[in-house]
């Protein structure tokens, strides 16, 4: 296994338009972002080999999966992928354990020990208690975890995740996102993730490819790409939120303090009370942050953070102000009305204060069971 870069250059005829996409993904997690109906799932299915209509070329490392000029089409069973669809697609006639081991034969051929993978995955995704259950008795979140675990135990060289959290309600998504981050951080399988959720892609992806009506309209580092005037309206429709990762450092009476960024130079953020002491993800809606040019006093918001304006953008109907809090903290995006930056006299490099209510901060903090 020398290179695991995924090279895609395909055309795919859909009902309303044609997907024409070319990209090379070499980062651990690449996201394909776009509104529903942009052709994301079809593209993922083409990569998986589940769509015979795709023309062009698809390659993982040195393995050519599709080369329609040379009439080469490698069927899905010989692509060594782990596919996790939106609805999980668990085998209803098998137990959780048997589902997790459904790809064990291939894993063995890849030189893995499926029994060992099973225990690793069961611990990572907290499935140990569910192993003997019938899958029809599982909840939505449990199903998605089993589906992810099945892909992880199958000796896959590439994980294809199709909106793995989209079928779940918000509280469940909050519980599952950390699982996906664990998989990313502790296992080394590259992932291609399809999503229309700005939080998900910021929390998971190293690189983002944005699709609209079948064509790539932007690509790059997720936070930067999402601020793109072409892209932000898509993200805004789903509710754009800043995503930060941090460590709880103190408990207050009814709130917790989370440290963001580097050990010495980061900032502290007051958030709703936390039950865990492991790493947490904090999300902050861009339209719930206020900008003040002077430090406000006598204000109910728990956080007033000094920041430096690094970018001012006009998106026509609204303005985006990006401000830096400190070393190692991703810049925060603040949504304002189009004329606000001019009315406040905002300039690049200017010091401002970001006013953030503790209750605007949403926390994605594992399942309450802290991790090392």
């Amino acid at each position, binding site marked *: 296994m020398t290179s695991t870069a995924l090279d895609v250059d395909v055309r795919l005829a859909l009902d309303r338009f044609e997907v024409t996409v070319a990209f090379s993904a070499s980062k651990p997690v690449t996201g394909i972002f776009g509104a529903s109906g942009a052709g994301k799932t079809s593209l993922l299915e083409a990569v*998986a*080999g*589940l769509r015979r209509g795709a023309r062009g070329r698809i390659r993982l490392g040195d393995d050519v999966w599709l080369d329609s000029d040379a009439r080469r089409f490698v*069927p*899905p*069973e*010989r*692509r*060594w*992928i*782990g*596919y996790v*669809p939106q609805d999980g*697609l668990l*085998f*209803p*006639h098998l*137990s959780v354990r048997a589902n997790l081991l*459904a*790809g064990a*034969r*291939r894993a063995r*051929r890849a030189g893995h020990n499926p029994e060992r993978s099973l225990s690793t995955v069961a611990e990572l995704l907290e499935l140990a208690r569910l192993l*003997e*259950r*019938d899958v*029809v*008795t599982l909840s939505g979140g449990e199903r998605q975890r089993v589906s992810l675990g*099945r892909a992880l135990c*199958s*000796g896959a060289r590439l994980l294809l995740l199709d909106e793995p959290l989209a079928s779940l309600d918000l509280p469940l998504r909050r519980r599952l996102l950390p699982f996906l981050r664990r998989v990313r951080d502790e296992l080394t399988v590259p992932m291609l993730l399809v999503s229309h959720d700005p939080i998900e892609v910021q929390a998971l992806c190293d690189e983002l490819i944005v699709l609209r009506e079948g064509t790539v309209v932007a690509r790059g580092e997720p936070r930067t790409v999402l601020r793109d005037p072409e892209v932000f309206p898509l993200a805004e429709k789903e509710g754009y939120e800043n995503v930060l990762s941090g460590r709880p450092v103190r408990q207050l009476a009814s709130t917790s303090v989370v440290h963001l960024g580097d050990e010495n130079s980061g900032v502290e953020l007051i958030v709703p009370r936390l039950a865990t002491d492991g790493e947490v993800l904090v999300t902050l809606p861009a339209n719930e942050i206020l900008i003040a040019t002077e430090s406000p006093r006598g204000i109910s918001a728990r956080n007033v953070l000094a920041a430096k304006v690094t970018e001012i953008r006009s998106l026509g109907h609204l303005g985006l102000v990006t401000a830096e809090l400190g070393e190692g903290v991703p810049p925060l995006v603040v949504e304002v009305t189009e004329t606000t930056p001019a009315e406040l006299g905002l300039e690049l490099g200017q010091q401002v204060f970001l006013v953030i209510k503790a209750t605007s901060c949403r926390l994605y903090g594992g399942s309450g069971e802290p991790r090392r």
Partner: protein
Amino acid sequence: MNGDLVSILLLTLRVATVATLLVIGPATFLGYALARWDFRGKRLLSAAIGLPLVLPPTAVGFLLLRMLAVDGPLGRETLGFDLGLLLTWKAAVLAAAVMSVPLVARTARVAFESVEPRLELMGRTLGYGRFETFFRVTLPLAGRGLLAGVILGFTRALGEFGATVTLAGNIPNSTRTLASAIFSAQQVGNHDRADLLMLIALAVGFVAILAAELLGRDRSTRGDSA
């Protein structure tokens, strides 16, 4: 008298069993092909398979008789040898098999159609080839429906009368099954014998249906009892 009844029952069971065993493979294949493949003449094939359901059984029997006649397409003059089926228990098997094909094939088709094709694709992404996908995903998921079809076919074969009588006759100790024995007893006015045979038919049918119920029990309750 009693030995006679036992031999009628055994013959009936043998005919139905052999007919069912003959039918399972081809009918399951037909059901799968109709459910999963697109090919030319699919509707025609589907209609042809259904024919024994709508034709009078005696017509089916007579059609088979014509085909097996000396100058028929399956007769001695065409094949160059004699299949030697007519008026033997094998002819009864053939008649019962043909009559039960539509039941098994059509139930199999519905059973296969009810299997989510995306689950089969999921199997493929986990490294299963086409055969492995069929045996590890499709067949287990269609299993209950297939079993129901087989039992349906078996009961049909048990009670087959019209086609059997036409093709195999109603020869004591050779081709006389429960169905034709009841008919004969009633025709000669031996109502005691007909009653007895009817009760045997009742018992056999009851056991078959009970077996179907037990075998087809919902598997999703398995986890709760464990």
